[in-house]
C-alpha cells in the first residue's frame, strides 16, 4: 500500500482536507464551549449539599462515563425525533459532544475545586464572605489554574472524538480522509493525511497547554511554609 503512496492525489484533495480541518476546528471549539457550560452546571449541582440536585448530576456523569460516545450520539440522533425534536445533524453532533465532554469536565472542575485547601475556604468564611463570594473571589480563581491543563487534555480527547460525527453525515476531517479512500481507493493516503491534520491540532492544543501553564506559573501559588 505504501510503495505506491501518491502525494499527488493528496495535493489534489488538499482543499477538501482544508475544509475538513476547518470544520473539525470550529466544531470542536463550539462543542468545547458547550461542554464547559454543561460541565460547570453539572459540577455546581454536584457540589450542592442537597441530594435532590446532587443525585441527578451524579447519575448523569456516571451514565455518560460508562457508555460509549457512539451510543450517546445515536441516542440523540435517533431518539430526539421520536420526541418530535428534529434538529440538524451538525447541531445534534455538537450537542452530543458537549453533553459527553461536559460530564468529564464536571469531574475535572470538581477535582480542581476540591484541591483548594480547606484553609482557603475557612479564611473566606472567617472574613464574613458569603458562599458565592468565596467561590468567586477565593476558590474559582485558584481552581482555574489547577484545571486548565486537564481541561486542555479533555479538549484533545474532544477533537479526536469529533471524528465520530462523520457517522451522522457531518462533513469534517475524518470524512475528508474517507472520501479519498472511497473515491480513489487510496486508504493509506487518506488516513495518513487525516492523522497528520489531527497531529497538528494536537500539538496546537499541547503548546497552548504549555503556554497557559507557563503563563499561570508566573506566580506560582502555594505558600512557602
Amino acid at each position, binding site marked *: 500500500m505504501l510503495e505506491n503512496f501518491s502525494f499527488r492525489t493528496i495535493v489534489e484533495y488538499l482543499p477538501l482536507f482544508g475544509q475538513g480541518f476547518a470544520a473539525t476546528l470550529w466544531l470542536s471549539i463550539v462543542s468545547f464551549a458547550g461542554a464547559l457550560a454543561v460541565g460547570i452546571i453539572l459540577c455546581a449541582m454536584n457540589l450542592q449539599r442537597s441530594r435532590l440536585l446532587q443525585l441527578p448530576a451524579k447519575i448523569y456523569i456516571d451514565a455518560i462515563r460508562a457508555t460509549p460516545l457512539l451510543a450517546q450520539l445515536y441516542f440523540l440522533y435517533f431518539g430526539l425525533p421520536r420526541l418530535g425534536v428534529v434538529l440538524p445533524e451538525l447541531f445534534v453532533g455538537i450537542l452530543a459532544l458537549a453533553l459527553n465532554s461536559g460530564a468529564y469536565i464536571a469531574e475535572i472542575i470538581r477535582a480542581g475545586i476540591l484541591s483548594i485547601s480547606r484553609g482557603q475556604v475557612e479564611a473566606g468564611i472567617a472574613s464574613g464572605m458569603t458562599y458565592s463570594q468565596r467561590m468567586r473571589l477565593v476558590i474559582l480563581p485558584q481552581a482555574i489554574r489547577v484545571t486548565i491543563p486537564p481541561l486542555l487534555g479533555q479538549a484533545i480527547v474532544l477533537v479526536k472524538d469529533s471524528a465520530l460525527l462523520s457517522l451522522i453525515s457531518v462533513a469534517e476531517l475524518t470524512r475528508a480522509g474517507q*472520501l479519498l479512500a472511497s473515491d480513489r*481507493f487510496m486508504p493509506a493516503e487518506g488516513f495518513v493525511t487525516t492523522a497528520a491534520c489531527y497531529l497538528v491540532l494536537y500539538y496546537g492544543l499541547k503548546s497552548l497547554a504549555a503556554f497557559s501553564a507557563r503563563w499561570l506559573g508566573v506566580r506560582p501559588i502555594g505558600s512557602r511554609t
Partner: protein
Amino acid sequence: LDDITKRGELRVAVQTQGPPFSMVDAAGKRTGSSVELAELMAKEMGVKITFQDYDWDGLIPALLSGKADLLVADMTPTLARAMKVAFTKPFMHTGSAVFAKSDSKFGTMEACKAKGTKIAVLLGATGEKVAKETFPDAEIKSYKGGGPLLLDAVNNGQADCGVNDVSAVKGQQAAYPAGSFTIMPEVLSKEPLAFATRYDEPDLLIWMNLFLDQVALDGRLQKNLDYWVNSEDWKKDHQ
C-alpha cells in the same frame, strides 16, 4: 491463484451492508447474495472459504495489503477506483432508486427536487454522486453503516427521502411493516456491480471472470439473483 490452492483457503473480504447482498441473519450466520456467490466460487476452486468482515474503512486496505484475496461487496466499479484495484465483469446491473416514507408529501420525484429537501445517501456509494446530480437543490446527507440506516433516517424524519441501490432498498425495507416506503419507479442511473481483486493477481481475475461467465450460462447466477434480489423469497428462510 496458486497461493490459494496451496493454502486451500479463499480469503474473502466482505462488507456487511445489509440485505440482500451481505448480511448476518438472525442466527448470526453470514449470508446474502454476494456471500453465496463467493461460497460457490470457493466450491469451484475446491478450497475452503473464510470471510473477513470489515467495515468500509477497512475493506480496501484489506485487499490492497493482501490480507484478503478478493473483495465481495455491492461495489460499483468506477474508473477512478479501477486505478487501484482490478474489477471483474459486472455480475449484475442495478440502479439507484429514490424512496420516501409512504405517508409523506415526498411521494414523487418532483417533490423531492424541491429546494432544501434532505436526501440521505450512503457515504462513498454511487448513490451519493447520482443524488448530487439529480437533486442539485437538495441537501445531501451521507451516512455510514449501510443501507438500513438510510431507511431508518427517512423513517425517523432525519431525511425526507433516500437514494440507494434499488435492490438494496427493496431488500432492506423488509424489516419494516409492508408499505412503509414508497419506492419511485424512476431509476436514476444504471450501474454495474462487480467483485474486485488486485492487479498483481491477474490469474485470479481471469478465473473470476470465467466463473461469472459460467454461472451466468448455467443459470446459477440467475437463480441466486432471483432468490435474493429480484424477489423476497429469502425472507422466508433468513429473517
